[in-house]
């Protein structure tokens, strides 16, 4: 089994929201038998399934953090307050925050879960990645490699 699972969340059609799936593409262009890659698309709730039986998981998504566009934050979801929409009118209202909270309540969170959040510039339909987020994509690939090394060292220790 892969040492690390990376899950990209987001819609490829909505500008910077595509960052999650595009990171998965970028990683799959390289050889990574040690990384399990998951393009979850925009079905955020579906990521819970990939938490089961995995110890080290990274979720990559566009995050509204009030930062400058392209800013990357490595987030430990147990250490921050996720903004939960607890009154969604539709299934479409159940997103990443809700999925993580649900997994946490069900004791399904992987032992080591990290979110790589990237501040978007635009999430308009039918637009491409903004320049700041294109740069962030390259940085995020490096972050995943660093994480892989850390996880491997943990396994060896």
């Amino acid at each position, binding site marked *: 089994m892969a040492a690390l699972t990376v899950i990209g*969340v987001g819609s490829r059609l909505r500008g910077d929201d595509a960052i999650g799936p595009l990171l998965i593409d970028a990683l799959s262009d390289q050889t990574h038998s040690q990384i399990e890659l998951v393009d979850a698309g925009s079905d955020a709730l579906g990521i819970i399934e990939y938490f089961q039986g995995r110890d080290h998981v990274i979720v990559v998504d566009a995050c509204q953090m009030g930062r400058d566009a392209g800013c990357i934050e490595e987030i430990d979801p147990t250490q921050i307050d996720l903004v939960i929409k607890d009154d969604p009118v*539709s299934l*479409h209202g159940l997103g990443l925050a809700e999925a993580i909270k649900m997994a946490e309540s069900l004791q399904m969170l992987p032992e080591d879960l990290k979110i790589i959040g990237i501040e978007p510039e635009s999430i308009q339909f039918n637009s491409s990645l903004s320049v700041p987020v294109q740069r962030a994509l390259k940085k995020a690939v490096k972050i995943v490699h660093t994480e892989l090394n850390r996880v491997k060292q943990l396994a060896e220790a």
Partner: protein
Amino acid sequence: MSRDLDIKVHHLTRVEGHGNIVVNMKDGVLEKAHLSIVEPPRFFEAMLKGRSFHEAAIITSRICGICSLGHQLTSLVTTEDALGLEVSEQTVLLRKLLVHGATLQSNILHAYFLAAPDFLNVGSVFPLIATHKDVVLRALRMKRLANDIADIVSGRAVHPITPVPGGFSRIPEKAELLEIKRKLLEEGLPDGLETIETMKALAGAIPQFERETEYVSLKHPDEYALYQGDIFSSDSGAIPVSSYLDVTNEFVVNHSTSKHAKYNRNSYFVGALARWNNNHAQLGEEALAAAEAIGLKPKCFNPYMNTIAQVVEAVHCILDSVRIIDKLIEMGLKNEKPNQTPTRYGRGIGSNEVPRGILFHDYTYDNKGNILQANCVIPTGQNLANIDNDMMKLVPEIVDKSKEEITLNLEMLVRAYDPCISCSVHMLEVDFIE
């Protein structure tokens, strides 16, 4: 009654300020009761223009994580209609299996994660995790089963890749289908029947409200229509899919950036309850027994019961999936290549029942196989006028309740239709304290 009411529910959705309930009553006279929604899939048309017939379905499937398969299959049948591509019986069966998986997943999640919290008056699914953990796990298990079907038949659970114009780029193995069948019978069916029991236990909390309206769905001569058929109206009967514009009659209203639709009356209903009302006689005996057990009558005019019709459909999808797998195996799986040689170019119209109701795609191709023009009419748009009419009847009936109760009843009404509003953006919001 001379009550004044002024209700504005904003932020019904994650999309900024869109999707608001507005009710205005003065001296007991209801002046306004409506829902306004922005409908992102309207951007379909612009995204599809100039794309080749190989791309159309992939693009539409990525509009939305929850509706992806419905859009993809409807896009495929539309392209096949436009280009004169015939598909095999095996392709049709595999597609029907996919539709069952998608319908099962959406209906179950809606019933457990949106409707059940309303029936239990707990606000959201999160309190239920503490009090009804087994039920939440059951919902996730059923979602997983639906994903397994999608994974095996379409290559990927969320944004399917193997369904292509003219067929499938990969045919599942017999052993894979048998494994799905085993799970459907050993896990899916017991979970489906327990879902009926759970919903039956909660059904007492469903508001007693009725408004007879026009119900529009597909109708198929041989089966409970989910994949293709004719359009059927409870008022006026069958009409071919090619005449869909005579049914949808979209019109613009001031309070919504999404168009409304009307056919024989000033609004109509699409979705599980419309399918049930029009086609229930074509369900199998297990689904009909489930309907009877849960109190869903052959003609039901309570829009809140849409959720109940969804769980009855879930039982049908599980059992009919088993039937389809048996048939595929009996026929012997053939490693056929998709038929992608156009015999004509021009306009095609396609329609399927997606979880939220009847969906139409309409493309015109040039003679190179690129899209010149596209039109998509999604279920939520078709339901908006009907939701408004429900509200106009509902508010005077519950006017003696508190403002909070009225608001909850209205929100539950909107949730019963499970509108597709914020398709596809799943942005995480994080408040940093600095």
